[in-house]
């Protein structure tokens, strides 16, 4: 009896906390359902070109979510994204194109192959920190691209590999709408799984390792294991994204997997918001949509505008430069990315007109 009397305040506080957590979860689930329903609905009204763009964004988002978990949550900055994507894509060309394995099995196997490469980089990375890990993944990029180029030239020449249409049982994914829906399911699965992992014990351990790895080790967290598992798991997801992208485009060539691509993914997670799953999706959408946005803006300019011709001929350089500008702007002005910006705007309206009464929590 005494125990119950003594414990009541804490237990009720705990229950209060659980209630709050459940309420937050419910809001999140509702938000996710609304966004998901809108995205599914769009599949039936969107034009082919927009569905194509949507598919590209979703596949990029899968890769960005994984990179964000590695960089934003575990604290390992990686320039090896293109290498992991290439590993997934080239595994798909062999298993799907040459051995004719079923599509879903190819996706899984490509993920495993990229995970293995991730494990190989993860082990030496235990001895590196910060800049050295970036350089290590940078080296990985060149090793993988070199190997892939040799393989491509020996097998098929510079045209690259062609892949058969993706087929799940009797459903052949051919139309833009099919691809849009498939990639939407893939990104939804990735969001659900990664968010679940990051909110749980593993996510806490990763954040602890990112914040202070020595302090993490004395709480009983095996820092080496966390880092290697982090590399393997995130590389797996990136490999799946690479293989999906290979099937979607239908052709794989090493020219796609440039260092610029790796930097674009870094831009996605910085612009979207480091350590945030929705941030990775928003960042992917922003970076993929940026070239289209530039084209549209340029289209709106009058043809007599003095720079219009220059912009049209240098559109790719402009695009690369703008990624840099956005990365710098976000790092300087809003390191939390678009997600933090949205939260700031929301907080402004929630507390309006009682400004400057922010709650620290």
């Amino acid at each position: 009896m005494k125990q119950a009397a003594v414990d009541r305040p804490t237990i009720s506080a705990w229950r209060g906390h659980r209630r709050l957590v459940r309420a937050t979860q419910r809001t999140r689930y509702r938000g996710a359902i609304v966004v998901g329903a809108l995205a599914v609905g769009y599949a039936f009204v969107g034009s082919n070109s927009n569905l194509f763009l949507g598919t590209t964004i979703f596949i990029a988002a899968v890769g960005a979510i994984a990179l964000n978990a590695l960089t934003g949550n575990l604290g390992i900055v990686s320039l090896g994204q293109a290498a992991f994507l290439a590993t997934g894509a080239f595994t798909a060309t062999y298993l799907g194109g040459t051995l004719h394995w079923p599509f879903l099995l190819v996706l899984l196997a490509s993920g495993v192959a990229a995970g293995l490469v991730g494990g190989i980089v993860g082990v030496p990375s235990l001895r590196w920190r910060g800049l050295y890990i970036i350089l290590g993944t940078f080296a990985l990029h060149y090793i993988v691209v070199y190997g892939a180029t040799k393989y491509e030239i020996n097998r098929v020449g510079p045209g690259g590999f062609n892949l058969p249409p993706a087929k799940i049982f009797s459903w052949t994914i051919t139309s833009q709408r099919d691809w849009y829906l498939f990639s939407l399911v893939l990104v939804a699965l990735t969001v659900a799984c990664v968010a679940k992992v990051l909110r749980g014990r593993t996510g806490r351990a990763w954040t602890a390792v990112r914040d202070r790895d020595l302090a993490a080790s004395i709480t009983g967290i095996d820092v080496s294991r966390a880092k290697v598992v982090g590399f393997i798991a995130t590389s797996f997801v990136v490999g799946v994204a690479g293989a999906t992208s290979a099937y979607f485009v239908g052709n794989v060539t090493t020219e796609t997997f440039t260092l610029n691509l790796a930097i674009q993914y870094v831009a996605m997670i910085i612009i979207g918001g480091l350590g945030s799953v929705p941030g990775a999706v928003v960042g992917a959408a922003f970076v993929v949509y940026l070239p289209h946005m530039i084209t549209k803006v340029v289209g709106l300019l009058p043809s007599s505008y003095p720079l219009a011709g220059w912009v049209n001929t240098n559109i790719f350089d402009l695009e690369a430069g703008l990624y840099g500008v956005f990365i710098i702007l976000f790092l300087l002005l809003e390191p939390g990315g678009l997600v933090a910006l949205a939260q700031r705007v929301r907080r402004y309206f929630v507390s309006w007109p009682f400004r400057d009464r922010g709650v620290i929590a």
Partner: protein
Amino acid sequence: MTRRTPSFTRRQAANLPDTPPQALQIRQLSVVYDRSAQAIRGVSLEVAPGQMVALLGANGAGKTSVLRAIAGFLAAERAEVTEGAICLGTRDLRGKSPSWIARNGVAFVPERRKIFDTLSVRENLEVGLSRQQAKRPHAHEELVYQYFPALEALSSRRAGFLSGGERQMLAIGRALMCQPQLLMIDELSLGLAPSVVTSLMRTLRRIREEQGASILFVEQNAGAALEVADHVYVLENGRVAMAGDPNQLMDVSEFRDVYLGMADEGTRSYAALIKSSRAGSREVG
């Protein structure tokens, strides 16, 4: 203010068998930093089950190195144990990883960089729980809140916003979550107000009495340490210079003069001279 009395021990809370606490034994321990500077030479000490032991000494005497050697924390500091044995009961701790040592009953609260700023107080407490323990986190948290009620009100706050005293409470609380047989605290009072230190020391005594954990702590404030410790080791220049219970040490005039500053005007400069001369060269020859 009425104090909440823990109604059950953490082992009961976690459904764990009540394993008797083990003694920590260190024999002839030597630690070398960067293969060139010897921080500790031939230190032997013992912490009996349920005992509260203080490590005193001047800056650079080797106190922190002893704790780091026990916690397996030396490799990250480019240091290594070159000789000696460290045992908790029958388990050999030498050469083991910090996470293994933490999972085997030794909790270490380092001097700095001990909490995770971006996690909430609650998440900080839960971060080290095993898969089994994570199923019932509130049972473990409840124990921490019994000793540090202030943390309960702050449980949703980001740890980066805590004050120095709150951070120290959180770090000790998190160490308790690991169910330690031995709790080690480096520089308990560093940067804290005297009233906070007194309250923390009292809480540590309660933890020792109610939970049966042994406590080994490093303290610069010799007077405060003597009030709570059962046994005291004084390190000088990497060696144990004096040891005994507080009463015994109070009888040693050199200890009183050098560490409690009780020397009169004439001998004070002499005491300071002794203290500084003992921080001599420690190059490995």
